[in-house]
């Protein structure tokens, strides 16, 4: 599996997710600086967590306009896989690869805590090895994770079964408890929880590991 991790100024989970990928695939991903203008040929593009451009203007808004994002768009439109984690999810909504927006948490505070996610869509390359209704333990750490979509948009994405993960106990006020969302075809996934922080669970493999491993098996 060839993986690229996009690094924006202000990304801060880029190294963590790179290590997670290396751990699962045995090979470190390519780290792609946001100003990159040449094409890179990979199976999966990861937009990591953090505070790209300091979250100025709106989280993800400026990163979405980086030169590298044109390639990410092309890659996604050609059916390539894209995973946006936390700040990466915010970038995906800003650039329009996913519908809706991520607003400040309902409590207006940053929240860092373990949460339970319910898998609600398994027909994606990210979640194929999970079963519908299965619970995953993957932590969240964000200030703006309150997912929102207009009524008709929301019913459209629900009808299309685009919701991949829902919170069991909604920590941030997200509409319909949405924690993770894919596009219609399922090759683009945005999620607020951090799978790279769930590589181990006690002495066993964590649910984040399982997610990355699912991806690898799908691609291979």
């Amino acid at each position, binding site marked *: 599996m060839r993986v690229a991790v996009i690094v924006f100024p*202000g990304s801060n989970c880029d*190294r*963590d997710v790179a290590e997670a990928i290396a751990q699962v695939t045995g090979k470190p991903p390519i780290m792609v600086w946001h100003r990159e203008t040449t094409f890179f040929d990979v199976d999966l593009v990861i937009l990591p967590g953090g*505070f790209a451009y300091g*979250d100025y203007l709106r989280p993800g808004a400026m990163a979405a306009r980086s030169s590298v994002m044109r390639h990410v768009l092309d890659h996604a439109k050609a059916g390539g896989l894209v995973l946006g984690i936390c700040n990466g999810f915010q970038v995906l909504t800003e650039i329009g690869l996913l519908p809706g927006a991520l607003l400040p948490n309902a409590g*207006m505070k940053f*929240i*860092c805590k373990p949460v339970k996610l319910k898998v609600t869509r398994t027909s994606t390359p990210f979640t194929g090895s999970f079963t519908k209704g299965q619970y995953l333990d993957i932590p969240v750490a964000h200030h703006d994770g309150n997912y929102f979509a207009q009524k008709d948009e929301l019913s459209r994405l629900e009808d299309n079964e685009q919701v991949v993960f829902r919170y069991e106990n909604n920590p941030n006020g997200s509409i319909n408890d949405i924690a993770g969302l894919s596009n219609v075809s399922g090759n683009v996934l945005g999620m607020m929880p951090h799978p790279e922080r769930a590589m181990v669970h006690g002495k066993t493999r964590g649910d984040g590991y399982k997610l990355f491993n699912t991806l690898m098996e799908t691609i291979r």
Partner: protein
Amino acid sequence: MSNLSTPTPQQIAEHGLSDEEYESLCEQLGREPNLNELGICSVMWSEHCSYKSSRIHLAKFPTTGKRVICGPGENAGIIDVGDGDAVVFKMESHNHPSFIEPYQGAATGVGGIMRDVFTMGARPIALLNALRFGEPDNPKTRSLVAGVVAGIGGYGNCVGVPTVGGEMNFDPGYNGNILVNAMCVGLARADSIFYSAAKGVGNTILYVGARTGRDGIHGATMASAEFDDDTEEKRPRVQVGDPFTEKRLIEACLELMATGNIIAIQDMGAAGLTSSSIEMADKGGVGIEIDLDMVPQREDNMTAYEMMLSESQERMLIILKPGTETQSRQIFTKWELDVDVIGRTTDTGRLVLNHKGETVCNLPIAPLSDLAPKYDRPWKKQEPAPELNAEDLPQRDPVDALCRLMVCPDMASKRWVWEQYDRHVMNDTVADSASSCDGAIVRIHGTDKAVAISSDCTPRYVQADAYRGGKQAVAESWRNLIASGAKPIAITNCLNFGNPEKPEIMGQFVQAVEGMAKACDKLSFPVVSGNVSLYNETNGKAIPPTPTVGGVGIVKSLDHVIGFGGAEIGDLLYLVGETSGWLGSSLYAREIEGLSGHMPPPVKLSVEQNNGKFVKKAIQQSLVRAVHDLSDGGLACAAADMALASDVGMVLETHDEMPNHAWLFGEDQARYLLAVPSHKLNQLQRLAYKQHVPFVFAGEVVGDDIKIGAARIKVADLRKKWEGWLVEYMEKIHGNAGE
């Protein structure tokens, strides 16, 4: 009037220099300074920069040891943790600005301490905060808590360094002066550490990072004076932080460090460009000439005075090897940071500033550093505090008292706070504030080793007896590291006191330092870095003396990490250490009986060492399931912590010859509570006997109640109260913040 003319008497007074100091300055210069020079001298001679009241006493700390790579005097202390790795750490106060503007004050405190650490070549891997607020009923407290916590989170979360631990207390003594002490721990390679000595003449001085603005001018002077009713007017002196710039600055500096282009590097902290350039020149034994027209500026028409005294954040000064300018610039340009050559080192031993074609300052370096004033201020020994006799206190329902203690502001769960901190970014956090462990534990990246960190001080002890209190702060830090499975190595500290010109306050300071020094010496726990914050007073009322200790230890293998959340039904509870039932200055005396100021518990360092050695062995031989150090609230509160963290009930023993309140809530030192699986008991008892350690049965892990004699409470009910206090308290301001 021009800044080049000599200052008026009023201007001299405004700069905080005493008449004697001004005279001495003129004598050393051989003339009167101009206004620019006066500004520079006044910040360098401020308490905050010169440590003029504290220096002679700080010399009492032991600062060397087998593992010490770098002691006090640099930006941070460094210890060797083996395998070529070094841990760099320091704690620093941001008290004055945080009281005036809590969000920015706390945020820039976090930013500043991180710069102290990465300046030395380390990647910051952990942040901690020791916070002291006024009483909850004080009208300012709530908004200060909200602002400080948001500021710490806002900065640390964005930069991407986990905030893994800390402490938080409330006391009316902090109503007018809160304390925000931030600690940062970083990881470096022992063979690539960077220092601040600007060695060599003719080398380029590079300015990097954010532009210089008019914020924070005279911050250091503000931090060297008391507050009064007009404190709000000092708001413009508080700096404004930008964690996004800091994040890029960390990455760019680490990238530049890897090139080998750097001779010396220093962050611009308190007193900005002034203190960074003077310190670098002084340590390198050179002079410095700066062209102020080249300094990147955020605002138009800045004067030399403003540029030199600005405390704009996220700026660094770097001395480059000749010929590396272009490559070095490219790195900062890539990270979209301002970068410019602003001057060079000279052989004059002087600080020369040129601005708009004029020399606006020409000062010798020595009077600003080594020859700065140093005072042996008069101090008064504290009167010995009266003893408190436990027998004189009334008998009370022990479970009711326990509940009151567990729910008091100092003890209640701080979940509301730490859930706002990213505790896991970087993926090396092993134990954080949520983990029920006496120390925070952060893995040394890519290894099975870890750093253990703890922050401690019991101000009510220091207030009653500064010598004992100082000793206790160090001992408790040491004990917390032992109880989390680590070997304690060294400390940093942040000494927060009132006005040192008052002999009683100076007495607190001197005695606390001596107590700390004694404990550090006996426990082989040297001081490698630190910070002093004096003048924490408002309208003449000083804070409780608060010498915060930040202890660092090494965990050899992650298998040794232990906390107090592992107790299982059927385990036996054993108390390590001797109990006399000492209630003087205890939490029980304060919260239940309303008594304070009595003699705090004695700290016997050889006993501390011996008991610690035993607990360490017990952990390494896997003879215990949970370990907790005994501190505030004694045995009963430690047991309650363990019950809550392990989600189990307990039956606690009472003592035949001691009143319940003395046995359960006494705060004798050098004690630990262990949860022992019954099949390991024999082995553990033998070990205790061999080590001559008092090892006493204290209860059993059973059911889902905490039970003492006939009294009991459900652990679930206690949890509700314990978790509830801070949330309820904070949500009063946010009104409808509930989700």
